[in-house]
């Protein structure tokens, strides 16, 4: 697998607390998949938002409506399409990604990209026209102006990344289809995430475990929210 050495490295760094036990391994898989997907998606989405925000071209409205549609795209359908793509007969079949974390990263990337792009674009276009103008007349090149706009939009972009992370980590449909909700024979999660584990535990009647996992998921999402809100407050109040 292309990302396996990285996984090994991370496991070596965190070592035992994540390796031992069913629940920690699920948390680890969830965070690993969602954080990787959101990071990759951010690296893709923000430059795209900058290009869309700075240029007028034929078909821009169409591109924007595709992105907006993507925000509401059902995750199970994304999972299905990604499954076809990585299956033996699919275009990515030779990579043998079915029921792997990498396949889950691909589908979460597809799911996180529209909200991150759309919200970043809104933040970028919301930057005061005069501030762009000021950067330009003070001698800024196109790149300088773009950097100023990114800096002005930083809280909006942080919100976009958070929204993408929220969609990725709490999403169940696509990771279930492409990941398969698998644990090893030792009971350690391979592709089982918090969401798919909750779904399984609840179906099997182990409500206590499901509730613990649910609480962990909520705390995770709230914690990330709190960090970004705090960060945003610093921007507003100073």
């Amino acid at each position: 697998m292309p990302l396996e050495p990285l996984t090994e490295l991370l496991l070596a760094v965190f070592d035992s607390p994540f390796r031992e036990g069913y629940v920690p391994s699920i948390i680890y898989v969830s965070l690993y998949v969602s954080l990787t997907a959101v990071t990759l998606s951010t690296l893709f989405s923000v430059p795209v938002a900058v290009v869309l925000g700075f240029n007028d071209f034929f078909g821009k409205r169409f591109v924007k409506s595709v992105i907006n549609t993507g925000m509401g795209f059902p995750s199970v359908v994304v999972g299905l399409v990604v499954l076809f793509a990585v299956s033996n007969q699919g275009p990515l079949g030779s990579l043998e990604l079915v029921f792997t974390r990498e396949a889950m990263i691909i589908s979460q990337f597809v799911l996180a990209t529209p909200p991150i792009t759309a919200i970043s674009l809104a933040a970028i276009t919301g930057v005061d026209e005069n501030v762009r103008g000021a950067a330009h007349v003070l001698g800024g090149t196109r790149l300088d102006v773009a950097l100023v706009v990114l800096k002005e939009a930083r809280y909006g972009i942080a919100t976009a990344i958070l929204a993408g992370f929220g969609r990725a980590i709490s999403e169940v449909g696509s990771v279930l289809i492409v990941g398969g909700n698998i644990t090893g024979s030792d009971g350690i999660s391979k592709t089982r995430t918090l969401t798919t584990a909750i779904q399984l535990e609840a179906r099997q009647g182990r409500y206590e475990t499901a509730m613990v996992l649910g609480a962990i998921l909520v705390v995770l999402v709230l914690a990330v929210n709190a960090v970004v809100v705090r960060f945003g407050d610093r921007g507003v109040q100073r």
Partner: protein
Amino acid sequence: MLRATDVSQSYRDESVFRELSIGIDAGEVVAVIGPSGVGKTTLLRTLALSLEPDGGAVTFDGADAWTLEEAERLSLRRRVGMVFQEASLFDASVARNVEYGLRIRRSWSERLREGLRSTVRPDGTNEAVRESLDVVGLTDKTNQHVASLSGGEAQRVSFARALAYDPDVLLLDEPTSDLDPRNTAVIEEAIAEARDRGIGVVVATHDMHQAERVADRAAVLLGDSITEIGPTEEIFEHPSNERTRKFISGELVY
């Protein structure tokens, strides 16, 4: 030094002004007077080389800016400073704002090193930054965030920001129209200071008293052309053009 010759501009197929000429030399203040919406901002942005004219030429020391390569035009553009009617400051400290013009003129490796250094040791204000904040009387606000400033202070920071990199030409677009008398006086003193440094200043204003106070020469922009240009006193006391006379006396209502 900086000269627009027979320039025309239009906005969405509508002509803003046509075949208009104006020049600015080192160490003089030229006021562009005219009613709101007549195209003073467009004229200033044309002089700032930030808006390409539909016709005519903008020359800087004889070089026709829009026939040059982009890199050469950038170096001309970087000899001009501009202040907008609204302060338009960046979401950062006063010092970071004033420093901006200096920062982007450095090489990328220097900018990177500077960025790393300031993360480790934040204070260490550039001498040019301190000096231009001194011109607008705001050295005590250096390390404050711009959100804590009053409207007048913000506009003074905006002025200092354009002055910090020592431009040859300073373009001011209605710099005091939103300000109280005290802040207006500070800006007008700063204009005089800039002229004494040998900077050519263009002030767009609808305030004729301000034009009389600060400008050596005045240009009256009415309709789509400059109806009259000359020494400020002469324009106000003996306007040769009938429309200029009516505008100055207040008979011409837009």
